[in-house]
């Protein structure tokens, strides 16, 4: 059941006007005992040059309804806290220009995750999957002298460059309908994280084998069906499917034998 709440100033909703942008926002307020069913609320936000989806949300919160809840922090595509489902696609609100979108701009919380309040989703599962791959540098041997540098060749650094860009926003996981159907699936971001360390020449053979072993699992790389939805939505343009495919080949080569 959805109730249409309109914003206090009666602005012609869903019509495109020159000086305002209409955003249509998913609202869910579990603290309202009597009426906790989700609904959509429209806000008419002043159109200014370069306004992003996040700017519009912040304006609505600051001027219209202080209870409108969403995560954000850096406002420059660095922290990864404001991935949302904007006009039918996972995007970072702070790096998405309103001018690139059809109006009214519809903003939902990330799909396939439980909604805690308004646009805030439960990220626990995503973080669990990220932590499952030990997302930290873990070399076989440390130099005797703790001050000694562990050098990486520029070529190797270049090789893993894109995979290091992940900001843990969860857009990829949310876009993946395989992940939606299999809760044990590690998901694109954590496999990319594993790739980042497997391909890092400094970690050493033993650790690499362990990591590849973990990737060669039904619920790891083999779950990927190459739908490319993660690659398509990643705000950091990480070639996720490509990395998953590379690890599939590594996993297959691992126990490849003639007989």
């Amino acid at each position, binding site marked *: 059941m959805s109730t249409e709440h309109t914003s206090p100033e009666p602005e012609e909703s869903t019509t495109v006007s020159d000086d305002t942008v209409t955003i249509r926002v998913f609202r869910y307020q*579990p603290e309202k005992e009597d009426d906790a069913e989700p609904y959509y609320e429209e806000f008419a936000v002043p159109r200014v040059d370069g306004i992003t989806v996040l700017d519009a949300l912040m304006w609505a919160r600051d001027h219209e309804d202080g209870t409108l809840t969403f995560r954000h922090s850096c406002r420059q595509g660095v922290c990864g806290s404001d991935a949302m489902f904007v006009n*039918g696609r996972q995007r970072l609100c702070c790096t998405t220009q309103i001018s690139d979108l059809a109006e009214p701009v519809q903003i939902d919380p990330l799909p396939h995750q*439980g909604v*805690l309040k308004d646009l805030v989703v*439960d990220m*626990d599962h995503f973080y669990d999957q990220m932590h499952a791959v030990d997302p930290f540098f873990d070399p076989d041997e440390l130099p005797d002298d703790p001050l000694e540098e562990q050098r990486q060749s520029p070529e190797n650094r270049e090789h893993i460059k894109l995979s290091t860009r992940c900001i843990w926003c969860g857009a990829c996981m949310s876009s993946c309908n395989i992940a*939606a159907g299999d809760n044990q699936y590690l998901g694109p971001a954590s496999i990319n994280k594993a790739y980042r360390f497997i391909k890092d020449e400094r970690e050493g053979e033993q650790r690499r084998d362990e990591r590849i072993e973990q990737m060669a699992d039904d619920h790891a790389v083999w779950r990927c069906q*190459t*739908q490319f939805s993660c690659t398509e939505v990643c705000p950091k343009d990480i070639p996720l499917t490509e990395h998953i495919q590379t690890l599939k080949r590594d996993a297959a080569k691992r126990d490849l034998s003639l007989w």
Partner: protein
Amino acid sequence: MNRMYCDTALETHIPTPFGPSTCDMSEPYDRGLVEDYGRWREFAPGMWAWILHKFTGWVLIGYLFTHIAVLSTALDGGATYTATIQGLEALFVVRVMEIGLLAVAVFHILNGIRLLMIDLGIGLERQAASFYISLIITALIVIASVPTFLGEVGV
């Protein structure tokens, strides 16, 4: 939906920004399957390729069984088999289904090649284009085949 509250959170109202989030407010709201299936319009090319590949795969498996059934009429002798084939081929609907089968098989083969390339790590940046090309080639072959399949129905 579940509207259970965590007792302690309600009583104390301690803001715990880094604590277990599910206990702070309430159970998360599950939007259910509607959100999955209602969103087909937003599916990306790779998703459509996947759906069509699964669908054509199942159709081919189904066809295999009818194929075996028709072939096994030959166990009763050549005459029965000939009569069965002639009877089936005289039906317009069978001809149309054959065109469908061709479409399904051609797409499955072309997309199979596409998936093979993807597995080998070749041309991943062009996966959407190769899906569209598979569709176009399938359409061309199917259109070209229509005269052959519908040519002499009932002759």
